[in-house]
């Protein structure tokens, strides 16, 4: 697993992907930070955090689009699948690689916290809690996108579908409100990613939210393993 993880990391940094993703994330988070905290004269980062999903939605599919689609297209999956490593290790190695880049993205908020501390007393506990929420939300979205990448040979398709799913998650709340069927609305509410994110931005750490994101992550990584396993048998 560590070999695959290392190779993923060097892959991200040898290509432009890591730099582009980090740059885009830093630029937009910085812009939101300026808009809400400086221009809006606020010491709270919660508005910034609330808007970060728009960036995550676009950035993560780019990060994960290559994970399995490109391996399959270039036939390099033959090296991985005939090596003495399990499918779970392959999937985890790739997932953790993308997660690390994403964690580096999120780390910029610590810098914003320090910047705020020059002007006001930042609420570190709220901020760290939100950061954790963003990290968990990102992990779940990465797992979904890794799964999408395992379904196709084209990284463009993987990226576009990933972004569409992101958009769907983002608008799910509005959809739910329009549906007159009660139980369906409840179901949609229950699987609405962003509902579980809101608590974090208030500084409330609840087991339900953490478990939700962790189980989505686990579920989609499991699905990815199954897709690879199935391909072997078909």
């Amino acid at each position, binding site marked *: 697993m*560590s*070999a*695959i993880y*290392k*190779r993923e990391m*060097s*892959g991200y940094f*040898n*290509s432009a992907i890591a730099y582009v993703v980090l740059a885009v994330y830093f630029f937009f988070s910085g812009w939101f930070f300026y808009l809400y905290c400086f221009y809006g004269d606020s010491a709270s980062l919660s508005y910034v955090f609330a808007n970060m999903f728009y960036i995550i939605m676009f950035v993560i599919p780019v990060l994960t689009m290559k994970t399995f689609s490109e391996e399959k297209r*270039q*036939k*390099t*999956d*033959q*090296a*991985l*699948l*005939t*090596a*003495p*490593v*399990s499918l779970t290790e392959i999937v985890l190695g790739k997932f953790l690689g993308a997660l690390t880049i994403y964690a580096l993205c999120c780390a910029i908020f610590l810098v914003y916290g320090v910047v705020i501390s020059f002007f006001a007393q930042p609420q570190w506990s709220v901020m760290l809690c939100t950061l954790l929420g963003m990290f968990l939300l990102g992990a779940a979205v990465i797992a979904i996108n890794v799964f999408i990448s395992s379904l196709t040979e084209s990284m463009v398709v993987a990226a576009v579908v990933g972004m569409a799913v992101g958009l769907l998650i983002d608008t799910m709340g509005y959809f739910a409100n329009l549906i007159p069927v009660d139980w369906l609305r409840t179901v949609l509410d229950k699987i609405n990613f962003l509902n579980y994110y809101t608590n974090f931005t208030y500084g409330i750490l609840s087991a339900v939210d953490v478990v939700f994101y962790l189980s989505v992550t686990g579920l989609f990584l499991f699905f990815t393993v199954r897709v690879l396993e199935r391909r*072997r*048998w*078909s």
Partner: protein
Amino acid sequence: MIEVKNLTKRYGKITALDNISFTVDTGEVLGFLGPNGAGKSTTMNIITGYISSTRGTVTVDGCEILAEPRKTKQKIGYLPELPPLYVDMTVRKYLEFMFDLKRVKLPKKEHVDEVMRLVGLEKHGNRLIKNLSKGYRQRVGFAQALLGNPPVIILDEPTVGLDPQQIIEIRKLIKSLGKKHTVIFSSHVLSEISATCDRIIIIAEGRIIADAKKDELSKVLADGQQLTAVIEGTPADIIAELKKIPDVTQAKKTETLSDKTGRYAVEYKPGADIRRETFHAMARIHCPILEMRAGSESLEELYLKLTAKAKGGAEA
């Protein structure tokens, strides 16, 4: 070393492999020969665990691939048809990655150096794989298969796309590997296989149609022996005269080359030699022999005949 038993692979309704069984002994170099799409790659992909079989088992050195995938895969070095290269890495970085991936327990730097030297890559360690020519990429793929000195090495068409000089080098390498490793390699070019292998398995339409030691193959498979000759004269006279020769079972004209000359095929009993009698017989009727070739059929002819037969059988 390798035991393949009743292997069948179906893709939907298409049967890619139909009940294949064979064994490979330790230190043997086995050639896998067959036209494109015969099932060579499928067989290799199953042995190495890349895909699973519909039915049947593969055992490598006592380990079954489905029961103990990790242990089995550790015993195999595999060069697929398309070398699985990460083109954005340098040769050395890639080989080090494969070294880690395969969990090789040897001193890393020394072993990677040694393998690179073996395939002639020692001067190219710091080049990006995407900047390498096809021949060098193939060598990187080769090096990757050799990492960790696995007892079994499987090579899927290792010489495709190489220039003649490189092909000779790779052949030498395969031969030298045969001393320490068990090697299976495939090709659709017969000369390739006959130059390097101890044993040949011919596969067509997903079935094994021949399995024999190289020098026995023609003996095992030939229906009889054949002599071909280009002779000038009246066909009827020539054929009548040819049939009079002792041991001849069949004589016919196979091709008209000009008004007077034609190509004749004479079949005779195995073990006999009818060249002298043919010469005297033709001399008697004043029909000069312009060309003559006798003996067992060349491997090339056998191969074509066998694969054509297999195809006919499958279609019928």
